């Protein structure tokens, strides 16, 4: 029988190792798997590469991971925000490496990893210094830059509901990076507001099918 439900946040993140690449969902404060990130903090894994859109804000979740020196490298599109104090402090001190990626390319690189593709050419960034050192090719008269897949060891995602097969639906704009991150990681962990019975989710409306999900954990709002 397939049952991807785990009872605790600790079990949800169990086994994440030092040096892992971890995808963390969310855009601003929408869709961030705060409780899973705190469980990762508790677990103690360090030397992490974090792939996420923003570099944390305030004192919780991603900012806390950075503050506690668990993050050696961050791959993101927009690290700056009102409260990105810890990231900025470590970045200025040269203690955290930043790989800046245009947001569409960030998402597409994860998709390529999940889709088993070897890379793609995109016009985004091809005219900018972000293309430095990368292969640039003119296709149909337009400059394109070659971008590689971005696979990961772990994805931490927040969603709304899940069944025991790991089928997932999200809530409004909290969906954001969840579906693509689920495809790109060897271990995909999803926190949801609610477990539902198998068959309760509309098969026309399942956003992330269980094949992409390894563990689901319920976190009451």
């Amino acid at each position, binding site marked *: 029988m397939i049952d991807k439900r785990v009872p605790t946040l600790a079990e949800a993140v169990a086994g994440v190792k030092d040096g892992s690449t971890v995808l963390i969902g969310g855009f601003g404060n929408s869709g961030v798997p705060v409780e899973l990130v705190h469980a990762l903090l508790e677990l103690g894994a360090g030397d992490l590469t974090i792939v996420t859109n923003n570099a944390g804000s305030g004192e919780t979740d991603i900012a806390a991971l950075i503050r506690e020196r668990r993050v050696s490298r961050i791959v993101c599109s927009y690290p700056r925000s009102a409260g990105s104090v810890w990231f900025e402090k470590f970045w200025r001190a040269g203690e955290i490496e930043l790989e800046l990626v245009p947001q569409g390319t960030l998402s597409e690189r994860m998709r390529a990893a999940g889709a088993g593709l070897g890379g793609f050419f995109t016009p985004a960034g091809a005219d900018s210094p972000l293309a430095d050192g990368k292969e640039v090719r003119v296709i149909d008269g337009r400059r394109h830059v070659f971008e590689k897949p971005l696979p990961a060891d772990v994805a931490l995602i927040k969603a709304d509901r899940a069944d025991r097969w790991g089928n997932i639906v999200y809530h409004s704009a909290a969906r954001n990076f969840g*579906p693509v991150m689920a495809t790109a990681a060897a271990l995909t962990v999803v926190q949801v507001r609610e477990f539902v019975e198998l068959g309760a989710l509309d098969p026309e409306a399942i956003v992330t099918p269980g094949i992409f999900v390894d563990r689901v954990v319920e976190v009451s709002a």
Partner: protein
Amino acid sequence: MKLAPIEMARRVALDIPDGSYVNLGIGLPTLVADVVPADREIVYHSENGILGMGPAPEPGTGDPALINAGKQPVTLLPGGAYMNHTDAFVMMRGGHIDITVLGAFQVSERGDLANWATDEATMPPAVGGAMDLAVGARRVLVMTSHTTKDGRPKLLPACTYPLTAAGVVDRIYTDLAVLDVTDSGFLVRELVPGVSADELQDRTAAELTFAPDLVALTPV
């Protein structure tokens, strides 16, 4: 005399046809949604996976997860849809957005856009979705003050800041003028009353051409 931000937004709004799919950049451009004529049905897109975005909710109401690209609370209109980030960028990069309105640090006379990084190195760089929008939207409109706060020109023969994308800007709306990017450089279409052609040229590093049918850019 120069236009206030809301007056600039009203001018931009006039150029957004009924039925357009529009992405408004963070900052000044977001004002445009508030002043589009009421008889036009516009579908607003947000890079974080919203199509058919509505205005901010009444204070104290609304869905905390439902935010726009600038992380401000918004609503969803009837007919709106949610999608994942990858699909939101298919819309942007794939030429499905009719119009984007973006801010700018610099625009060159060839339509090069620099709006993500300056030459200072004290703040970490950040790019967001600007590059995907700039290369992908069918029409790229720039909305910006004509010069920097300390009076330096933003419209240049060539950008000195790192590019967002080359040759993408179609039209620029400043607090002084409306300019098209043409094969022969900046063409001034509209000019605020009280500013002379010479004065505008003085505040512009690139050479300007003035349209024969130059129109007064009167605040509405």
